[in-house]
């Protein structure tokens, strides 16, 4: 199978503002768990939005499975944004039905078993849940899809440590060689053990693409420590 994601010359300039993404070229293969790492304002979120079709590029293209962002690519992408994006007035069970309705690859039973494991009452309305619980629900919905590309923007930042372990284990057990998981996060030390590769981004450009093992072997330090070195203020 060819590369899952191909990004060629991708650029985004906001009106009058700076260059958010600067002529990026990346290919992302299948079957990997990849960390997208960079400081705030580095262009991670802009890149992610363009992959999801939430933002139109100024130049260049994004191809997912050979498709530009559109109906075909959206069928195969499971996206977890940083914000709460579900309707507050809906119940958890209604949201599960919603996902099942629109996505053919959604596994309802998996969603319900995860909700149970995290002790979330599916009859409660979204607006009654705490912020951390809302984030868990959103994550469960994304992980219950059998997508080709999972894009998780800060999946564990707002979640308590016990649930974090559960979430990381879920990501590992859901892994399959046909799919790729792209994780964008600040909490590098928490997740670096589950990553295959890391991509460092700064000022809209990719400054490093490497495997976690290579960094540890060659630099003799963890990705977290190496990151702090590279991005020292």
């Amino acid at each position, binding site marked *: 199978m060819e590369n899952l994601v191909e990004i060629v010359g991708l650029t985004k300039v906001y009106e009058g503002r700076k260059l958010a993404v600067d002529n990026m070229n990346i290919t992302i293969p299948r*079957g*990997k*768990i990849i960390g997208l790492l960079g400081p705030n304002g580095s262009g991670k979120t802009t890149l992610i939005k363009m992959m999801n079709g939430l933002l139109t590029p100024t130049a260049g293209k994004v191809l997912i499975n050979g498709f530009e962002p559109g109906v075909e690519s959206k069928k195969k992408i499971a996206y977890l944004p940083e914000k709460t994006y579900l309707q507050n007035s809906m119940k958890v069970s209604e949201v599960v039905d919603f996902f099942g309705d629109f996505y053919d690859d959604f596994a309802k039973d998996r969603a319900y078993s995860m909700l149970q494991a995290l002790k979330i009452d599916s009859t409660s309305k979204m607006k009654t849940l705490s912020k951390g619980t809302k984030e868990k629900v959103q994550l469960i919905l994304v992980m219950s899809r059998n997508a080709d590309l999972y894009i998780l923007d800060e999946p564990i930042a707002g979640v308590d440590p016990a649930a974090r*372990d559960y979430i*990381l*284990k879920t990501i*590992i*057990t859901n*892994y399959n060689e046909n799919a790729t998981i792209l994780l964008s996060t600040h909490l590098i*030390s928490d997740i670096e*053990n*589950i*990553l*295959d590769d890391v991509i460092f981004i700064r000022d809209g450009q990719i400054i490093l693409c490497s495997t*976690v*093992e290579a960094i*540890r*072997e060659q630099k*003799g*330090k*963890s990705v*977290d*420590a190496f990151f702090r070195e590279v991005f020292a203020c």
Partner: protein
Amino acid sequence: MAWELNQDRPIYLQLVERIQLQIVSGYYKPGDKLPSVRELAAMASVNPNTMQKAFTELERSGLIITQRTSGRLVTEDLKMIKKIQQDLATEQIVAFFEKMKELGYSKEEIVNLMQTAVREVE
């Protein structure tokens, strides 16, 4: 709970060591079937590809044998297991001696200390 892994060394090497330890200590007996790559990866909270790399390494050394039908088994070669056990023990001893020398003890003093400690433990 995730396995405790050192931050600055390659993960797959540490996984190899950990599994070796489990085999040598008898946690996995000769001929035992090991859990799948994914199960172990989830237990250790590591990337499945990294766990796979560790397994490949262990297969290469012969400690683990992959059979098409029955999966991954611990070798029944007791001599190999014993050898690894001894190698690991020697590593520990060498490291112990280094540490004691750093504290300033001579070889005889170390042996005396050991005998006293062993008696107290019993």
